[in-house]
């Protein structure tokens, strides 16, 4: 088998590989740009917390549907993620905890709760599916859901682009102009949640946030322009999907981790190769710039 054939043959031969490829391309396209904004707003931790928060919701969906039902778990996940986002916003407004500190305390609770619910009814296999996803078992409806979420998030992002960016840069000025900064912030959190839910089907609770964060961190090492950064982040995610699936196929490794590890490899490479990476010292002009 030639090397070239090895690149396309798995996808030509197996329908599940094709679906997995479409799924990871779709995920990368949606999660990449959202991840860039999440990092620029210094909310990486919050993304992590939200991904955990989705778990109990999905678990309740799992219970309600009596099995691994995509729709029920997706809806449950979205509801739980939004609930936690709202709750954390409230808590940080009431107390003087920073938003990420309040998120961090919610997410451990959510994780425990989710694992408890799934393991009460389901098998260990179910639990593994929920935690780590089943990208090789993605079916038609799951793909439609992912494609819908990616379409919606790219559309919403471009629609609220200006207020969202200005709310990141200078929230005080936004308030002066009478804009509803908090509203755009909520829309953005909604985008984070739905993209995590999309990733959750394929990569599971624990890794779906990887598709959002690692490509974004990689892209930030190559450009300082926002739109190219988001495009690059999406590209890295999509390419990592393709490469990770091939690696997993040829070496008989689990697909989800291979995809995320490919993202990590891209990140490591960029850290070393990019002009603003390690070689620049301190990752940019200011020691406080990047995560």
């Amino acid at each position, binding site marked *: 088998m030639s090397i070239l054939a090895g690149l396309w043959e798995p996808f030509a031969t197996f329908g599940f590989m094709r679906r997995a490829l479409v799924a990871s391309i779709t995920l990368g396209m949606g999660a990449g740009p959202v991840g860039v904004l999440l990092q*620029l707003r210094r909310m990486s931790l919050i993304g992590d917390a939200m991904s955990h928060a989705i778990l109990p919701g999905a678990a309740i969906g799992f219970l309600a549907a009596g099995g691994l039902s995509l729709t029920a778990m997706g809806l449950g996940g979205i509801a739980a993620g939004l609930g936690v986002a709202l709750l954390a916003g409230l808590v940080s407004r009431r107390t003087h905890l920073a938003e990420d500190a309040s998120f961090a305390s919610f997410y451990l609770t959510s994780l425990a709760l989710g694992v408890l619910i799934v393991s009460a009814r389901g098998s260990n296999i179910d639990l593994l599916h929920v935690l780590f996803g089943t990208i090789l078992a993605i079916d038609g409806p799951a793909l439609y859901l992912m494609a819908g979420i990616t379409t919606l998030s790219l559309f919403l992002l471009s*629609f*609220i682009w*200006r*207020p969202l*960016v*200005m709310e*990141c*840069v*200078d*929230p*005080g*000025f936004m308030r*002066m*102009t*009478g*804009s509803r900064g908090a509203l755009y912030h909520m829309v953005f959190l909604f985008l984070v949640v739905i993209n995590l839910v999309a990733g959750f089907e394929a990569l599971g609770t624990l890794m779906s946030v990887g598709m959002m964060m690692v490509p974004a961190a990689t892209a930030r090492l190559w450009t*300082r*322009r*926002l739109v190219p*950064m988001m495009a690059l982040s999406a590209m890295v995610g999509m390419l990592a999907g393709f490469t990770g699936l091939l690696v997993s196929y040829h070496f008989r490794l689990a697909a989800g981790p291979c995809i995320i590890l490919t993202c990590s490899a891209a990140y490591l490479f960029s850290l070393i190769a990019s002009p603003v990476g390690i070689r620049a010292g301190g990752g940019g*002009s*200011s020691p*406080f*710039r990047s995560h």
Partner: protein
Amino acid sequence: MSYGAIGLDDAGVTLHGTPVWQHVTGSFPPGSMTAIAGANGAGKSTLLRAILGEVPLAAGRITLGGLRAQDFGYLPQARIIDRAFPISVTDMVLSGAWRQTGAFGAAGRTVRQRAADALRRVGLEKQAGRMIDALSAGQFQRLLFARLLMTDATVIMLDEPFTALDAPTTQDLLALVREWHAQGRTIIAVLHDMHQIRTCFPHVVLLSGGQAIWGETARILTPGMLQRAYDTPQPTWAGSPA
């Protein structure tokens, strides 16, 4: 565009149980140019924020003479601007045209032309294509003035706008403020430089001991008044420990 004075009528602000200033009565007539002076902690920033409705009044009232929120341009003292965010100098200035473009409208040729003019006016035309994190603090302050220029605000409120700026930059930006005044805009600026106040600001509000002394600069900024405003220890009120 006709509007009345911004008026304070026996107004008082209390923050966390401690009165900041009380029984403040006075007005900023349309087109006036007023400096706000007083020691650190006297409540100067609080006065600006009270006018903007950002801090609630404990007593009295503030009338805006028909001005709406979007008629105000405000440069706060404590800015929470994310200067590391990857956005260009031009885009930052364009955001000043919010009243024309809104959240979704296009920034057409006239708006872009005005943005370029505003940047030229503050001497940043060469930096137009840069990202905001590539500006020095003084250049960034120039950028904020350019954005203020874009907003075309009727009332411009500046909270210590020249802190940490070198003399040429201060002179440039002060000239811009005087230009705004000459165009009939109302200027309210918190300043610590008495010389600046004396030479450029016809009126002054001196916050001292929880009170506001309001009037013509020459009459207010007397050695005795300044002594009282800046040299007395932190003001005490009945009920609080001396």
